[in-house]
Structures are given as C-alpha cells and as structure tokens.
C-alpha cells in the first residue's frame, strides 16, 4: 500500500525523519468545538501519535453550523466521545483518547502532563488561564486560538521559555466584559480557519521549524482580508508569579465554563436553586430543610416535566454518581443550567439545616 504520509515525506522540510517526529508527538486538544474540530481532523490526518480530546459538553443542533466532525445523529452525545469515533475512521494507526469532562484546577496538571502540546480550543477565559498557567508549570507549549464574529486571533505561548497568555492579557476580563459564546454569532468558517492555523503551528513546532507564532499575535479578519501580525514581549513578573506559587491561579470569571459538577462550598444561601433528588423514594436520609423535587433516575422523565426557570437546577443522590447521569440526560433534552452535586444527600441535609 502507498504510504499514507507520502505527501509529507516528499517535502524536503519534513522527510521520513520529520514524519517520524509527528508520529511520536502527543497533542491534547481542549474543547472539541469550532476550533477543536478542524484542528483534530488535520492532526489525525497528519499522523500525530497520541491525540487527546477533552470536552464536557454534548453536541447540540446549533453546533452543526461550524463543528464539522459532528452530524445530526450525534445530537445529545458527548463531543469528545463522538470526535474520537469519527477520527478513528480517519486514522486507525494513532492513539486517540477521549476525556468527556471539563478541565478543572484540580485535574489540569494530570492531563497536561501527559502531552507535549496543548491546543486551546475553549470558548471561555476560565479554562484558557488554567491551560496557560499549567503549561508554564509543566513546560508545555500552548497554542491559542479565539474568535469574534468574522475575526480570529492565534498565538503560541510558552514555547522555548517564550511569553505566555498572561504576558499578553495579564488581567482576566470580568464576567460580561467580553460577550460570551452564546451571545455572539460567528461565521461558521472562521473557527475552521483559526483551528487550522492552530494545527499548522502544532505541526511546525513538532517538526522543529523556527518561525512559529511565539511572541506574536496573529489577528485575522475574514471580512476585509487583513492578516495583522503583532509582536509582544514576555512579562517575567507574570510568569514568576505562577512559578513561585507552583500552581495554577483559577480566575473568577467562569462565563461559559461547562462543568457539570458543583460543590456545596461553591453555593451561597441566597442563591435560587431547584433541588432534584434522583434517588429512589425509599432511600435515606430524606432531606428535611429544603424544598426538594423527586425524579428517581430509574423513571423516565419527559422534557417538559421539568420547567426551567431562573433557578439553577442541582441534582443529587447518595454519592454524586447517579446525579451526574441525570444531568447528562437533562443536557440531552436541551435543559441548561443543570448541575450535579459533588456531595451526597447526608451532606446536603446538614447544609440545608445550617442555612
């Protein structure tokens, strides 16, 4: 059979040796959305040896306009899992791992340490700063991409001790400062182009090419065909801050951050919450001081049986396992603002008594 990487090998800049570098490389793509989909496709096709895909979210109809790995049969399924299945059909010779959950300050070190290059395909600042900080601590390269309507930004951070995202934007935006993913439209091909730029930079770094977007911010405007390249410098104070602390600094703005789990410690007593008990009706303890709705996981629920209001919906069980499954079910039915309680019923009961 003809070598599938023949067109790479033919390039004197790559050759057999370069192709082997690609096949030994390890890349993690955080966010299998508009940016992640095209990046993943090209990296899979190129033969990146180990590819990780992380995304907690499920495919919804409005994703299909730009997230080109998914089709109508995938609605409601986890993006990382579907992406993995699709990409396996494209290249069965590489290792593809799916992580169907969110990157958090607790797990960020574990996953970033498994890879060499991290592609930032997220749509929120919370995850972006987490990736940035951990890449500084673990000495990994971060490839940044982000969008606004018809425009995109691309850069490479922490490459050979180069500048980081915090060197470019030291202070994270406050909630509502930058319009979030669901408020702004985007021309479907824009993430396609930016995500492809990210894959390009990843391959160049793997191949050891000199001229990568380190210390440079590329701004692409698809409406007026302008590509502008900006230089920026490393800010040692920003990098030292992270290194001295030896851990990531989670930012306060969690806009658009998709995490299914919530802990009692994160909740305030005046928050509007609709509590859902997904245990069977005979399980103890029953919750005494809070208003509870009962939807045992064993029974099927119709999508209109839970009316979504302003309140945050939080499901709980004994350990936090069944409640996670319930939240997944809710997401599949298009119900947003639904979370799974990390703690169990007895902790909730104590919490309810105190407030």
């Amino acid at each position, binding site marked *: 059979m003809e070598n599938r990487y023949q067109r790479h090998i033919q390039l004197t800049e790559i050759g057999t040796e370069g192709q082997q570098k690609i096949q030994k490389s390890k890349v993690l793509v955080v966010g299998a959305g508009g940016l992640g989909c095209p990046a993943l496709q090209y990296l899979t096709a190129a033969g990146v040896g180990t590819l990780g895909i992380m995304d907690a979210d499920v495919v919804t109809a409005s994703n299909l306009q730009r997230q080109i790995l998914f089709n109508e049969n995938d609605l409601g399924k986890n993006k990382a899992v579907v992406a993995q299945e699709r990409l396996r059909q494209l290249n069965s010779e590489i290792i593809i791992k799916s992580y169907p959950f969110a990157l958090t300050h607790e797990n960020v070190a574990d996953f970033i340490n498994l890879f060499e290059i991290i592609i930032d395909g997220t749509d929120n600042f919370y995850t972006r700063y987490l990736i940035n900080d951990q890449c500084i601590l673990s000495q990994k390269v971060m490839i940044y991409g982000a969008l606004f309507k018809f425009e995109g930004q691309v850069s490479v951070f922490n490459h050979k001790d180069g500048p980081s995202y915090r060197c470019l934007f030291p202070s994270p935006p406050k909630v509502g400062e930058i*319009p979030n993913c669901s408020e702004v439209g985007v021309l479907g091909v824009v993430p396609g182009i930016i995500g492809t730029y990210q894959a390009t930079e990843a391959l160049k770094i793997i191949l050891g090419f000199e001229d990568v977007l380190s210390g440079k911010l590329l701004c692409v*405007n698809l409406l007026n065909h302008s590509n502008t390249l900006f230089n920026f410098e490393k800010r040692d104070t920003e990098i030292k801050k992270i290194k001295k602390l030896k851990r990531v600094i989670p930012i306060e703005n969690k806009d658009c951050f998709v995490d299914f789990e919530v802990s009692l410690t994160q909740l305030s007593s005046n928050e509007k919450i609709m509590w859902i008990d997904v245990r069977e009706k005979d399980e103890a303890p029953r919750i005494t001081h809070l208003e509870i709705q009962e939807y045992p996981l064993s029974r099927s629920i119709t999508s209109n049986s839970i009316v979504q209001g302003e309140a945050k919906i939080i499901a709980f069980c004994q350990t936090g396992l069944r409640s996670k499954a319930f939240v997944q079910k809710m997401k599949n039915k298009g119900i947003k603002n639904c979370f799974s309680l990390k703690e169990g019923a007895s902790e909730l009961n104590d919490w309810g008594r105190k407030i």
Partner: protein
Amino acid sequence: MKIKVRYFGQIKEITGKSDEYLVEQFETVQSLKSFLKKRYPELNALNFKIAQDNKIDEDSSHLHGTLIDLLPPFSGG
C-alpha cells in the same frame, strides 16, 4: 503628526468604525487611552491592549507610532 487608529473585535462595535485618524498629540500610550475612553465611554468597561506600529506596548510607553491598534481579548471557540 497624524496617527491612524484601528479597532478590532468588539471595540469596532463600540466606536462604530474600523479605523480613524487623530490629529491630537499624545505623550504616552496611557494618554491616548484616556482620550479614547472619554470619546467612547464604553471602552472604560473593557480590558484591551494597544499596539503601536505592530508592537503591543505598555501603557506607560512613550507614544511614537503612527499606526495604533486597539486589541481586546477574544473569547469564542
């Protein structure tokens, strides 16, 4: 000396234009920033960087460029 100021992302929506020329004189990046924030008050609520002649610069830097760009962070993915 006339300077050209270009607006990116949502800054373009705040100013209602993609670029404009300014004839005023500015000592520093900060003084230009203050001038623009007065002209477009919505910029006060926004964190953005200024580049002069394609180099992203500190607020305290002397303003010497003739091409100025206002760059907000983007969030979408």
